[in-house]
């Protein structure tokens, strides 16, 4: 079946819905293709808040927010992106309120704000109240509000459609996509003038993750497979310090923003040693590394000394019940721990890809270090790399990213659609996707996706997570290559057409493997430590050689090529990063 839209958005989380809304409001005929019902998207799992210098609780300025973002990103952040972001996110938050988003309120009726990791006043002097929030379900409220507005706007949704390919003209303009309808197994083609990718991250390549089961980096992989489209800064993957022990379910940084303290086995507030000024509210990469070191040096909590305690017991129970109700319930439900009475066992959990599909400030996908734009193709949110987050994203900046750059990409996609015409898809556009599916279904001997995925998740956790070395990364490069060879013989039991989740599992594993390949090669290549990329063998940041973005291209499976893109500097000179 063939469909036609001026603007086609892939993904219905915060960035996709924002792009869709802004494109539709400016007159485009918009379609949204999503592999989930929109309200199932993982934006809904974001908890603590959306940072913007509203200044509702105390003095704040966008310049301070910009500085924190750049420093938090260990100076790999592009400063033009950080400036646009810190300025525009103020308006974007107000816009969400105007769409009805139920923020928590201050006694004077304004939006309430709380403290969050790495957000400071006066360029690092002390934590600042910047995160606008709705209890600890801010992402849920953003997702619901944007979906509600999309209903109001009458946007067309294709729910539970899995995109398998993006179609380009010979001279490299994006003109359509191919998607598998989960309900029927049918392949659909979509012709569009502008295509906006908003499909999120790929945390499921790690064993312990806060990410949904569905986050496999589908579109990153689909573009990377083309060979001529790179992925940017894939070596930078954030581990959030506080995932529920064993499960990895997120416990918001807002818990520390409200006064929670991380303690080791002897009850020590160890972050005082690692970040004397802002302690538990240091950026995530620093806290995760500190926790890892505490555990490694034998100061972990519990019988196996393998977790850290997040202590909220000194807080007023009212604060926990009213400002952190969901995480209190997660702790009670999944660990049987009541945070009012005892500390929550936590470990770092794979959380967020700073890297992704490289774009301009308007979400246009670029294909090289010179910033050459691919006409008709846009990317936003976690799937993209603009690069706002640099080497490490600050808490709350993902939600801000979604609405600021979602809006910019939505508007840019409309402008492009207004002046360009449709290009007919070739009659054989869906053939490669059909061959991919038929190939998997036809195979009768080999391994299930489960066995291969389990090995991927465990080895990525062991060899390419919080701390890395040349030796471990070299080993992991080999392992990923072996896993890809095993994947060529992946088999599924379900040979049917309707709701074939077995097939989806196999396809998603293929996407994950590509992302893992790009990540480990990029990590092995970058011989320095910066932000979330911590090399034990190269412990220092090396601005002389590595103040640049990595672009990784796939030449052939297992073989990659690197190019680089300069970091956009400006207002803030790179300085050592201490807190």
């Amino acid at each position, binding site marked *: 079946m063939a469909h036609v839209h001026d603007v086609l958005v892939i993904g219905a989380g915060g960035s996709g819905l924002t792009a869709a809304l802004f494109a539709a409001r400016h007159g485009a005929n918009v379609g949204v293709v999503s592999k989930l019902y929109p*309200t199932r998207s993982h934006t809904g799992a974001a908890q603590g808040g959306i940072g913007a210098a509203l200044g509702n609780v105390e003095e704040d300025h966008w310049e301070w927010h910009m500085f924190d973002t750049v420093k938090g990103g260990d100076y790999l952040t592009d400063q033009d992106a950080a400036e646009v972001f810190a300025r525009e996110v103020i308006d974007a938050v107000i816009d969400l309120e105007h769409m009805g988003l*139920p923020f928590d309120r201050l006694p004077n*009726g304004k939006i309430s704000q709380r403290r969050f990791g790495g957000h400071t006043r006066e360029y690092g002097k002390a934590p600042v109240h910047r995160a606008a929030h709705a209890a600890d*379900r801010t992402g849920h409220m953003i997702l619901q509000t944007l979906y509600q507005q999309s209903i109001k706007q009458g946007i067309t949704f294709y729910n539970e459609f899995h995109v398998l390919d993006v179609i380009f003209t010979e001279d490299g303009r994006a003109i359509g996509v191919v998607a598998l309808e989960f309900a029927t197994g049918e392949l659909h083609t979509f012709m569009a003038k502008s295509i906006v990718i908003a499909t999120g991250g790929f945390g499921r390549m790690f064993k312990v993750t806060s990410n*949904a089961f569905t986050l496999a980096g589908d579109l990153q992989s689909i573009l990377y497979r083309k060979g001529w489209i790179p992925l940017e800064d894939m070596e930078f993957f954030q581990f959030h310090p506080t995932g529920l022990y064993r499960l990895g379910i997120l416990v918001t940084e807002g818990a520390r923003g409200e006064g929670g303290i991380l303690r080791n086995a002897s009850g020590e507030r160890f972050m005082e040693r690692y970040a004397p000024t802002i302690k538990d509210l240091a950026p995530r990469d620093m806290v995760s590394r500190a926790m890892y070191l505490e555990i490694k040096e034998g100061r972990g909590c519990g019988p196996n000394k393998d977790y850290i305690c997040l202590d909220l017991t000194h807080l007023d129970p009212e604060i926990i019940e009213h400002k952190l109700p969901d995480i209190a319930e997660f702790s009670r439900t999944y*660990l049987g721990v009541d945070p009012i009475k005892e500390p929550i066992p936590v470990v770092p959990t794979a959380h967020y890809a700073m890297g992704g599909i490289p774009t301009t400030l308007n979400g246009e996908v670029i294909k090289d270090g010179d910033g050459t734009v691919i006409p008709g193709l846009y990317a936003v949110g976690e799937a993209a790399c603009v690069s706002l987050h640099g080497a490490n994203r600050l808490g709350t900046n993902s939600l801000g990213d979604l609405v600021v750059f979602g809006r910019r990409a939505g508007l840019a996609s409309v402008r492009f659609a207004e002046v360009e015409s449709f290009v007919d898809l070739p009659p054989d556009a869906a053939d490669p996707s059909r061959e991919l599916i038929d190939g998997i279904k036809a195979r009768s001997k080999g391994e*299930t996706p489960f066995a291969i995925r389990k090995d991927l998740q465990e080895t990525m956790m062991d060899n390419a997570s919080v701390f890395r070395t040349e030796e471990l990364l070299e080993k992991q490069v080999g392992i990923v290559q072996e896993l890809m060879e095993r994947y060529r013989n992946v088999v599924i039991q379900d040979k049917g057409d309707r*709701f074939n*989740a077995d097939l989806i599992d196999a396809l998603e594993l293929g996407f994950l493997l590509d992302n893992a390949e790009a990540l480990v090669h990029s990590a092995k290549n970058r011989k320095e430590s910066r932000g979330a990329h911590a090399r034990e063998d190269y412990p220092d940041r090396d601005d002389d050689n590595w103040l640049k973005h990595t672009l990784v291209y796939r030449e052939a499976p297992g073989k990659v090529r690197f190019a680089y893109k300069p970091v956009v500097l400006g207002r803030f000179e790179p300085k050592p990063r201490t807190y």
Partner: protein
Amino acid sequence: MRVTLKLLRYNPEADQAPHWESYQLDAEPMDRVLDLLHKVKWETDGTLAFRRSCGHAICGSCAMMINGVNRLACKTLVQDLSGDTITVEPIRGLPVEKDLVVDMEPFFKAYKAVKPYFINDDPPPARERLQSPEEREIFDEGTKCILCAACTTSCPVFWINGTYIGPSAIVGAHRFIFDSRDQGNAERFRALSGGGGVWRCRTAYNCTEACPREIPVTHLIEEVKRAIMLNQL
């Protein structure tokens, strides 16, 4: 511990009717029912179909009838269930598509019918619209809804009456009716007071018991009924 997972299976491409299949597995008391479903799917029978995404009760994908009660598979632990047999079947009242997957379209259609979006046609101020913490608190419960359909598909009126919009849609309307900033009540009341609207509710309280977010659903429905009556006076 050893448990028996009894699943109501149905493959539209092969089966005439749904049937039970049992799987013996090792389970930990802290395992989620979702973990057990994954175990069956990944290690025993890849043809098993069910929906899931976030795994921690915020996305609303995995509402199922577990031991006769509507719950989220990701929020139900083995230790929460008595006995060593766990039965899982699709939520009721929506057409079964395959195994535990139901057709969600009628559910979302009912949601959309109550105009579940912010309506205020005044030009917005330069900054946020003001709202006191007390005004915000009044509609807080409804904002927690994750549209999982556990409430609606536990409602006996919804099962029998083909037109009732169901508890979840009314919760969706409540969230805006009681929001001090919203002006859309006239439109919403029209949708809610029609034949398939709130008056179909017989206060069975099944919805309140089923809600995985602990929203007092029946209470919210009663508040909506009262608001419509007051509006008519």
